[in-house]
């Protein structure tokens, strides 16, 4: 009831559910690596450090369990004059960026995401803190969205 709900917004466009798989693999690799180092340290006799690492691994495990929910929480809307982006369940974050503020658009593909045909789109403005990064877009959709955003930015260009 204390959650942030934005009034009168349109339909959120969601990212591909395949992103869950990407996040799960990445999370599992991290989990395994941390636990393995923990086991190694245990046998070397640095018990307290190993317990610390296992605690980290436990948090990562819990985090992993919420992955599907977290991916469902990522959304964006192309409003008339700005891009609205949201992510997070525990740590909710909403960002609104006017199209005219765009400096450039990046498209990145990690190895696992590329295997599943996903791209990550990054909208860069003059402010470093904005951090609008939309993961898990199907490749075609990401390219189309990038071209669309560039067009929108061109027609609404603003200074710095």
């Amino acid at each position, binding site marked *: 009831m204390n959650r*942030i709900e934005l*009034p009168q917004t349109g339909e959120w466009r969601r990212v591909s559910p395949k992103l869950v798989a990407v996040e799960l693999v990445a999370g599992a690799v991290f989990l395994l690596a941390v636990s393995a180092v923990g086991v190694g340290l245990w046998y070397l006799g640095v018990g307290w450090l190993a317990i610390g690492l296992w605690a980290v691994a436990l948090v990562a495990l819990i985090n992993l369990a919420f992955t599907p929910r977290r991916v469902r929480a990522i959304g964006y809307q192309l409003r008339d004059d700005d891009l609205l982006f949201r992510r997070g369940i525990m740590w909710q*974050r909403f960002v609104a960026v006017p199209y005219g503020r765009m400096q450039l658009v990046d498209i990145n593909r990690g190895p696992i995401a590329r295997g599943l045909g996903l791209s990550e789109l990054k909208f860069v403005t003059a402010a470093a803190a*904005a951090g609008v990064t939309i993961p898990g877009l199907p490749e075609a959709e990401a390219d189309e969205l990038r071209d669309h955003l560039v067009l929108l930015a061109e027609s609404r260009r603003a200074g*710095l």
Partner: protein
Amino acid sequence: MSDTDHAGAVREDVPEIVARLTDGQWHRLHPASPLLRGGIALIAILGVVVSNLRERLVGLFLPRFDEEGDPVDYILSHGIIVQALLVIVGVLLVLIAVFYVSWRMHSFRITNEVVEVRSGILFRTNRKARLDRIQGINIVRPFFARLFGAAKMEISQAGHDANVHLAYLGSAAADDLRREILRLASGTRNAALPVTGVATPDNLIDRRLGEFLAPELDPDAAPPESVVNLHLGRLIGSILLSEATLLALAIVVGGGIWITSTGQYYALLFALPSLIGFGGYYVRRFTRSLRYSIAGTPDGVRIGFGLLSTSNETLPPGRIHSVEVSQSVLWRAAGWWQIRVNRASHSSSRGAANQANTTILPVGNLDDARRVLELMLPDLVGEEAVAVIEKGLVSRGNDAFTTSPRRAAWLLPLSWRRNGFLVVSGSLVLRKGAIWRRIIIVPQPRLQSVALSQGPVLRALGLADVHLHTVSGPIRATLEAIDKDAAVGFFGEVAQLAVLAGQNDTSHRWRSGEAEA
């Protein structure tokens, strides 16, 4: 150019030079530039090295001098004075030739659209900067360059290491050139105002002396009156009442206790360098604040300072991305404030009081702060808004600002009454802190994006954070722990305002709307 011709009628030589510099052709810098830029240092260093290592260098290259002792003796005793002199002259000629070539190869031009610089002998570089993206123009006159009547111009552009340096130009020409560049950049179609000039003496020494003693504010471009007078006492007080002093006191007290309790008095030796360091810090801050002045011109705010080495920068309108008025608890009793800004450009040159050049007002009372705000935000906040902001600075809460609810006291036990936001015409105002008082003003056309966030603790209390994103700088415009519904409303309003203000903004060509005269 016709507009500068009639200016030339008023003041004979200088406007002609400027008209020449902005005619779109390639021009060279001040002839003494290579010398000023590093030649002198090079020669001095060489001199020191040679005089210190003379014997060894000679022994290294010409081992047979070893038994003779001094090479000067050798030269004298063998009667090869002519040859030795020829070698020295040859080295000098090579140095001069290198300087001359580097000067010949370093040229710049200013057109209606861009300023372009090319330089380098072996590795050529060419830098082109658009005039309408200029973030500020700084004219620095280091002490030594002032003796030569030269000045360094730095044209700031957005981005890291993106500034255009013109080092060095003639001192008088630099001021006029800046005015001309700003006029071209402003997009005005009006000709430059005729310069009601000070008569320049014909005598070279008189002219140098005149330039040397002239006030840092160019009298014909700005209203000569600085809006702030930095009193000597206030300056010294503000420097002493700083965090550095607290640190120094902590070191002295801590060190004193430690030394007297352990009896290891030799530790005093280690304390000496750090004390010298603090002394240097105070002296630098002090000398860099002398003759501080700030005034408005048609092309933006001009800030000048410095006694021997002077610096004087013009910030065109719309180049200030956010403003912070702050007061540390140490300055509370004296009622002093400091004003800093976020700018898109990053310059290596230091600002007033030897602080980053984002510090606009090193120290001032409430009146000074108000006058500087009026100067910096004329189009951004109205007269009544300045009054509201001024009240907001010292208010304890319960005013025009929308502040945090009482339950935010869990997170902000002291400042929750003051912690709040306000939307005024043209700007967004955030107020924070009860001990370290701060007001942050973000001009709406400069807002890049806005974010709203909430973590588990804030959610439990029904609160949220709002972040206003501007270009990076010393100021982070983030407001923590305000009521969730108020935050959502503020977020929506700001998102709309950001779009509108961005579309209507014409400040990159700030005088383009001006009627033709």
